[in-house]
């Protein structure tokens, strides 16, 4: 029987280590052949914003290339690539949260939805993990 894991994320980029852990869980699950749904809520809708750019570090005097600054959109993109067919990663941003934050311009593959989608995802999944801000 196919397994499916749903994860709800709420933290904005670069706030907490929980986002990194969540992405590690998503990656590990996909590599095991488990389908994954991510419902990004509140600040987490900005994880996939297309206009994110890496930056140099003027304090250390490093260039953009030397700094290799990671952006969360690239993490999301790589996870979507990993889950592009079977197993599949479905990434849904909460539409109301998107509108509030003006976070409309996101990378390809990220969908817009509502808490009703989260309910459907959770009800169709083997398990659901909610990672709250607190």
């Amino acid at each position, binding site marked *: 029987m196919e397994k499916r*894991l749903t994860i709800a994320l709420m933290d904005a980029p670069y706030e907490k*280590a929980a986002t990194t*852990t969540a992405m590690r*869980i998503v990656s*590990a*699950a996909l590599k*095991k052949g488990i389908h994954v749904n991510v419902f990004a809520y509140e600040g987490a809708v900005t994880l996939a914003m297309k206009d994110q750019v890496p930056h140099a570090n003027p304090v250390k005097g490093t260039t953009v290339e030397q700094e290799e600054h990671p952006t969360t959109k690239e993490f999301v993109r790589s996870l979507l690539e990993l889950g592009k067919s079977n197993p599949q990663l479905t990434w849904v941003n909460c539409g109301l949260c998107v509108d509030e934050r003006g976070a409309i311009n996101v990378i390809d593959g990220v969908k817009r939805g509502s808490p009703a989608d989260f309910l459907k995802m959770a009800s169709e999944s*083997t398990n659901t*993990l909610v990672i709250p801000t607190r």
Partner: protein
Amino acid sequence: MSNYVFIESRDPFESADTSFLADTAASLKKRGNNVTVFLVQNGVLAARRQARKSSLPQLFESGVTVLADEFSIRERGIQSGEFHTSVKTASIDQLVDLIVQENTKAVWH
């Protein structure tokens, strides 16, 4: 009987409510459930023997399985010799295996 997986991300020195999680996990174990506490991020700081405020001894006495994320341990430079002997290191793969078991409740803290 159910399976419970508590993912503890909080440092016991920063968040007093880590003891609430330990109480809950121990109570569920006493009621006959399979209970695992998976330490991750700053939660792994509790796995050190010298961590006086840790609730882990309570979990060990209750028979709760305690795992610690090896990546979080490496990030914090914690050496294997510093650990409680009852703590087992685990990969994020093992966490995924635990939470996709049937009849399992996964709780992030």
